């Protein structure tokens, strides 16, 4: 076991040498690269990375350029997770046979995927990796839409969101189905560690990532990634939107250990909790909800978020 990188405060963290490069083609203000940087900088060990097809993949590997300073592979839309799981299985086999060329190095295996690649297309593959308990980490960059192909709805898209395949208008209020509870599903695989993170709470995030790297076995991370293009807000407000998502409890930050031990890691004070209405109002994709005919949806949103928060609190208390 290699030594964990010590990150006490942001100043100390800022001495990290980034292994993700600029001049990638992600939109200005994209949260994807903020998340990727926080993940990669959490360790000094070697990395074996994969990405499923999605914004992150198409923007960081535009031939003849690559933005990755570590070994990185892209195969298909669904199999970012299995590519890394295969590499991990090979590493383990060579290690048992004593055939590793640099046995003192402890590479970390990380796969990245968008919500489309994880919630929908690569779902079966990820489930397989989690079930086989490979020593790897899967990070979802959850922007709640297929942003790369023009904003089609995915199973992560929440109710009332206007996506290009569920457009809002006089008859429809947009997406009608609720967001899939991916964290619940992954935790139900009884994996050693699953956590929900947000890039604005960098300390919480880095702590969880390091915990994930230290864990032997499969780790699932769900990271909220506000999309300036599809959520329709100004690029400079990315961090503001992430703040709203975590403080309105639309995106609560918690971890699940061994499938049952749930800990809430960020609990905003009573007075700091933002009404969900404010979170919805900040985004163009929910603009139609503020018309009189759809206003009841905002109330439903608030009730849903409150119910989910109460559920998480009860689970934390009950330890089941």
């Amino acid at each position, binding site marked *: 076991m290699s030594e964990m990188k010590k990150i006490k405060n942001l100043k100390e963290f800022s001495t990290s040498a980034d292994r993700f*490069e600029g001049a990638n083609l992600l939109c200005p203000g994209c949260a994807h690269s903020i998340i990727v940087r926080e993940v990669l900088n959490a360790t*000094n060990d070697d990395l074996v990375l994969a990405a499923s097809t999605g914004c992150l993949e198409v923007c960081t590997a535009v031939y003849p*350029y690559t933005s990755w300073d570590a070994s990185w592979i892209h195969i298909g839309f669904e199999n970012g997770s299995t590519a890394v799981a295969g590499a991990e299985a090979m590493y383990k086999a060579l290690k048992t046979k004593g055939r590793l060329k640099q046995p003192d190095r402890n590479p970390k295996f990380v796969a990245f995927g968008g919500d489309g690649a994880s919630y929908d297309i690569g779902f079966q593959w990820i489930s397989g990796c989690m079930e086989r308990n490979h020593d790897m980490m899967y990070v979802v960059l959850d922007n709640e839409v297929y942003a790369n192909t023009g904003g089609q709805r995915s199973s992560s898209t929440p109710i009332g969101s206007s996506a290009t395949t569920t457009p809002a208008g006089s008859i429809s209020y947009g997406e009608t189905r609720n967001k899939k509870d991916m964290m619940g599903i992954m935790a139900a695989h009884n994996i050693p560690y699953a956590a929900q993170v947000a890039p604005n709470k960098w300390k919480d995030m880095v702590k969880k990532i390091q915990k994930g790297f230290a864990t032997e076995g499969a780790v699932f991370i769900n990271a909220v990634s506000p999309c300036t293009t599809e959520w329709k807000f100004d690029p400079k407000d*990315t961090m503001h939107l992430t703040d709203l998502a975590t403080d309105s409890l639309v995106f609560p930050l918690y971890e699940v250990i061994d499938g049952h031990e749930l800990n809430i890691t960020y609990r905003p004070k009573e007075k700091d909790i933002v009404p969900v209405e404010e979170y919805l109002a900040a985004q163009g994709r929910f603009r139609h909800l503020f018309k009189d005919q759809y206003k009841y949806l905002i109330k439903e949103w608030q009730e849903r978020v409150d119910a989910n928060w109460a559920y998480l609190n009860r689970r934390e208390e009950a330890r089941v």
Partner: protein
Amino acid sequence: MANTGWDEFEIGAMLRTFEGEAGNIAGTLQEDRKYTENSSFSASVADWRIEKPIFAKDYCIDCQFCWIYCPDISIISRDKKMIGIDMDHCKGCGICVEVCPTNPKSLLMFPELADEETEIAQWPAKEKKEK
């Protein structure tokens, strides 16, 4: 290399980011690395910008919020100090200005053609808090 057409791809291409042995990259700062022309570090997205951030060092408290929240690795921090902006990779999103906690802000957005020295000379004064 940069002008390779869409039908001239090398199938199963492997791009090498560094010349020769990579060594310990996590312990090597960007200026000490030997990038190849395949690394996007050698490319530039400066022409994406409409507005650019200008950094007034005098007000900076080195909190590093801009460093952690910059999506384009364009805030250069060395030895726990913020020392400048990488103008080749900055896309001008303005997140660094939004997260800057000082009063007045030590980073502000200006039109791409603004002159850095002139703008720093007429930097806005401290804002008084409304009571």
